[in-house]
């Protein structure tokens, strides 16, 4: 396992204020999913935005050995507040990255159609984005980030507005993409179950830590409750409790 993203002594502050992140370290290996959990306002989005190249930082932050200097196509991002382009319809939004990479129109269309199906929005290709429901918007944002097949996906609570069922489908979609393609993910979530289902490792922050306080290997990745024996379920429950305690300490 080679390290794709390396953050070493990463410090991030907004303007002249006290730093939000202080000397934190993080490694994301190739083809792993790091689920990042922590209480609201602790700095999860800030960390993700720094990796995305959206905000300046101090310290070391590299992707495949190169310092991160700004947004780039290797790092697909889904914002916490989806920023779809209102002047494009659903299909045009999803195809944006492919058009940017100058793919042939037929290729773009094929991929868009495929993605529309994956996110359960077949037949909505030509809807305006402001005529979408909150959950639909989130799914379009995910599809837009997935479309150009970036080696790293940064997802900031991508399923926050989805009902349980759709959410599960999307989680499974993520995992299957991750299994099929050589892709790494950083997934911010406030749902521990989601973290346990998706994460290869689980990174934890607390309100006051300004750093990752722990990164735990997760033995339950991809395993739904029915798959687990009673003992395993209990162990999982304990693991989850441990995480909760860590987060809120």
């Amino acid at each position, binding site marked *: 396992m080679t390290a794709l993203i390396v953050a070493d002594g990463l410090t991030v502050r907004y303007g002249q204020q006290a730093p939000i992140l202080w000397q934190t370290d993080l490694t994301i290996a190739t083809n792993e999913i790091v689920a990042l959990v922590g209480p609201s306002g602790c700095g999860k989005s800030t960390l993700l935005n720094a990796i995305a190249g959206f905000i300046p930082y101090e310290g070391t932050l590299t992707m495949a050995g190169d310092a991160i200097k700004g947004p780039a196509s290797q790092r697909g991002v889904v914002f916490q507040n989806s920023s779809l382009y*209102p002047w494009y319809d659903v299909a045009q939004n999803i195809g944006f990255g492919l058009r940017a990479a100058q793919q042939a129109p037929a290729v773009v269309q094929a991929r868009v159609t495929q993605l529309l199906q994956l996110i359960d929005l077949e037949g909505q290709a030509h809807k305006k984005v402001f005529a979408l429901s909150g959950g639909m918007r989130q799914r379009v944002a995910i599809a*837009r*980030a997935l479309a150009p097949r970036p080696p790293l996906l940064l997802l900031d609570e991508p399923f926050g507005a989805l009902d349980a069922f759709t959410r599960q489908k999307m989680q499974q979609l993520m995992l299957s993409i991750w299994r099929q393609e050589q892709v790494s993910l950083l997934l911010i979530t406030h749902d521990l179950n989601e973290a346990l289902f998706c994460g290869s490792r689980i990174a934890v922050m607390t309100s006051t830590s300004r750093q990752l306080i722990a990164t735990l290997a997760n033995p339950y990745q991809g395993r739904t409750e029915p798959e687990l024996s009673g003992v395993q379920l209990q162990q999982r429950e304990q693991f989850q409790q441990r995480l909760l305690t860590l987060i809120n300490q």
Partner: protein
Amino acid sequence: MSKKRKITLAVWLVLLLLWEVVTRLHLVSGILFPAPEEVLRTFVAIWQHGYNGIPFWQHLGITLWRLFSAILLAIVTAVPLGLASGMSDTVNGLVDSLVQFYRPIPPLAYYTLLILWFGIGESSKIILLYLAAFAPIYLAGVEGVRNLNQDYQLSARSLGASKGQIFRWVIFPGALPSLFTGIRTAVGVSFSTLVAAEMVASTSGIGWMVIDASKYLKSSVMFLGILILGGLGLLLDWLLRRLERRLIFWKGQL
């Protein structure tokens, strides 16, 4: 008819009535304030026989040609330059202070220089109108970019869009509402520079007609010219707004 339309119509009817009454009762001098009928009569006469030996349509045509070529030129140049200046500090450093400097200078003050450099033909007139139209569009471009949510640009770069692509696919549409306001202002401003532009060495054009009439105190022609210019402006603005509604369907949703 919508309520708004009804009110608008009422306003204009009241104004027309007021105009009629004021002139009927000779509340103001007729020399400088002709009655509506007289303006109408003048219009019919000019429509049929032209003004100064030139048919009405030619006056209108030449004015519109000057206006449209100037505005088109302004749109074509000010939109990319304004957006680029909003995006890039280098471009901003290069052009912004120049635009901000020439912008407040009255056209009448530098018209002399234009005549010296470009002669008394069409080019100096069109350039004058062009310069008047350029500034509001440029400014709207810069502000359109600056007011745009930064996330749009960030996500475009994350999706691998090049600078040019970001320009065309994100900045341009994102600034479009602002640009439209700018273009509408520019149309107004270049219209209102029309008289200045057609004042020198002209023998045709609605603006010239107004100036010429005013020199000889043909107030009904003056009024006619004013009404035509105002009406044209109104019409153009209405067309622009229709276009805007079509183009910027996401207005107020952003």
